[in-house]
């Protein structure tokens, strides 16, 4: 029993098509709201955590212990004037933040979230190729970055866009090859040893992970984690919007809520990537004890990964662009290929 069929049952008096449609919509809204709220909580934790590392106090004014600080910031951003630069490409300028925002949000409804007590499975998308679908949506994000950077005719944005494209090209490839190794390993069932077709399906990848694939392929986990931080353009890989060099890179000419949407996309990307890693490498909603609360397991794993990424953020200086691209092509790509070969040997001989 999953959430979809449960909502379908509640609205079954409306007939099949209508009740399924309502079911999908409500389920999607539920997941997006849940993710958003948990994410706001996570950013609050991040701010406190960052403040402690930097011998500061952190937010403590808005609400009890400053819990509502992020909401106050969001209202501040909405209330700000959105300054439009002259000589912009109007449509591209306005559509770019929406692309980033929507692509990030849509990615969340593809993930297999696992079970949550009474509600059952929270997975929304029941497709056999969710892995490919997710990578497809992720490859929309660079379009938003490019449109945003090129449409404003600022040299800062231009250089920022060049860097963003270099980042996306050089880290997409190791990320994909690492994911391919997962597909190979998960294409054979642990239990029966026979070939199964669920290699592209995130749900079956999770259910098939009796041992987390991160233990089987630690190299892949490391490569994927570094690529994920780089794709999310987090410090030390935040070259595209490096604030001390290019002001904010491709978002330089944005202000107000449009800038806020880019900001949400940036933070959403790290959250999405952490979900992705915990699903692919850390057995997702499986835990040491079998319960119907797999959702909680997934969240704990994801939050730990996000906090590790935040720790990297506050402790390292920014890497230079040439060293950055070298890292992608000269180190991570060969490592991911080695990992792929290893995965091949693993499914042929070791298992």
């Amino acid at each position: 029993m999953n959430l979809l069929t449960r909502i379908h049952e509640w609205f079954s008096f409306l007939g099949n098509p209508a009740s399924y449609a309502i079911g999908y919509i409500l389920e999607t809204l539920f997941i997006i709201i849940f993710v958003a709220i948990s994410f706001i909580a996570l950013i609050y934790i991040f701010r406190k955590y960052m403040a402690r590392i930097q011998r500061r106090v952190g937010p403590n004014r808005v609400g009890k212990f400053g819990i509502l600080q992020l909401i106050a910031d969001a209202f501040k951003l909405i209330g700000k004037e959105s300054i439009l630069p002259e000589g912009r490409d109007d449509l591209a300028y306005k559509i770019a933040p929406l692309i980033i925002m929507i692509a990030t949000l849509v990615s969340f409804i593809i993930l297999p979230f696992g079970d949550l007590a009474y509600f059952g499975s929270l997975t929304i998308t029941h497709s056999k190729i969710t892995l490919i679908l997710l990578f497809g949506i992720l490859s929309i994000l660079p379009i938003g970055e490019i449109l945003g950077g090129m449409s404003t005719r600022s040299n800062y944005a231009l250089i920022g866009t060049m860097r963003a494209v270099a980042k996306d090209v050089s880290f997409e490839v190791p990320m994909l090859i690492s994911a391919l190794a997962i597909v190979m390993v998960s294409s054979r069932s642990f239990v029966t040893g026979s070939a199964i077709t669920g290699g592209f399906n995130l749900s079956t990848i999770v259910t098939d992970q009796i041992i987390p694939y991160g233990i089987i392929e630690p190299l892949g986990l490391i490569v994927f984690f570094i690529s994920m931080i780089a794709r999310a353009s987090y410090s030390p890989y935040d070259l595209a919007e490096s604030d001390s060099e290019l002001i904010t890179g491709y978002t330089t000419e944005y202000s107000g809520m449009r800038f806020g949407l880019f900001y949400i996309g940036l933070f959403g990307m790290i959250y999405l990537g952490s979900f992705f890693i915990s699903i692919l490498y850390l057995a997702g909603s499986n835990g040491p004890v079998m319960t119907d609360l797999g959702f909680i397991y997934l969240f704990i794993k994801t939050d730990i990964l996000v906090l590790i990424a935040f720790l990297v953020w506050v402790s390292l200086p920014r890497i230079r662009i040439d060293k950055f691209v070298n890292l992608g092509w000269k180190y991570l790509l060969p490592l991911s290929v080695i990992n792929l070969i290893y995965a091949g040997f693993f499914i042929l001989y070791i298992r």
Partner: protein
Amino acid sequence: MAHYTELNIGPIHPSIHGILKFKVKLQEEIIEDVEITLGFLHRNAEKICELNYYADNMVYFDRMDYLDAMNMEVGYLTAVEKLMDMEVPERAQWIRMIMAELNRLGARLVGLGAFGLDMGMLTPFFHCFIEREKIQKIFVEASGGRQEVNYMSIGGVYQDFNDQIINDIREFLKEFKPYLEDIYSMFMHSEIFWQRNDGVGILEPDVALDYGVTGPLLRGSGVAYDVRKDAPYMFYDKVNFDIPISHKKDNIGRFILKVEEMRQSIRIIEQSLDKIPDGPYFNNKAKKSMMLRLKGDGEAFSRIESDNGEFGVYVRGNGTFKPWRVHVRSPAFKNISVVPVMAKGMMIADLIVIIGSIDTVIGEIDR
């Protein structure tokens, strides 16, 4: 056919130290040429000094290198006292020396923190500023001012040290020593920090001497020149300290050198605290009621070692209560002019780090 991108870094930019403009010619990310535009913060301080009494000019010197105000005051006062043949009591000299070195520590801390910030390293900045805040509390205790202290006066200092200030300084130094090593290791244990700085911003010693570069930038190129050793003023010849030099000529050498100089400053303060004698803290000729009646005649030039390098002050009097001409030799102005040489052929990220490593203060460049 060469195709350039022109990028205006400044006057308003997150990582330029103050308001100055770097017009950068870029070929993709490689810097072909840098053109510096100054003058956005020109306040005509030297000219205004001619309109005021000798004692009033201190505030304009506070606002030159606003991070290193004590050293600016020392620079002005040594010139004015030379002009007036004013004896400074021994106690006042030691107090001035302690304050100058404390302020050097504070200015260096800002420099180190901002250097980290220029590389996208957020954490050391806050640690540096929290330590600097303790120095400023000592200044508040002594003078009432945090940053623009206006502490010294002609022939002495504004207020005597009491036991509490001396205790505060001793306690601060005891706590600060391990924190300095902490901050230092925050940078040095980072592989990316080495990647960003090793071999970046190379300044050959002969180029540095041609441009009139002084201070840590010159010592970072392997020339052991420090006014405190070469032409001692106050009591720098009565304390033991070393002038570190670096033969690496790049950012990393300069960084290590700056931290080593901070350790030497701590040594100076510790020795000075032990050597403070009792006695008057101002010259009786320049007591507060007589302050505006001080006359100067002739000309005098003094040079001191400020945070950025050799800070020179030229004062000329014509026998009246006001100086006839005041001129300042600003080290930061000479230091910033060498950026195009250092940044040529580097990447844009390196330019920002080089500016951070030079650590100029715009208030002193534009006066």
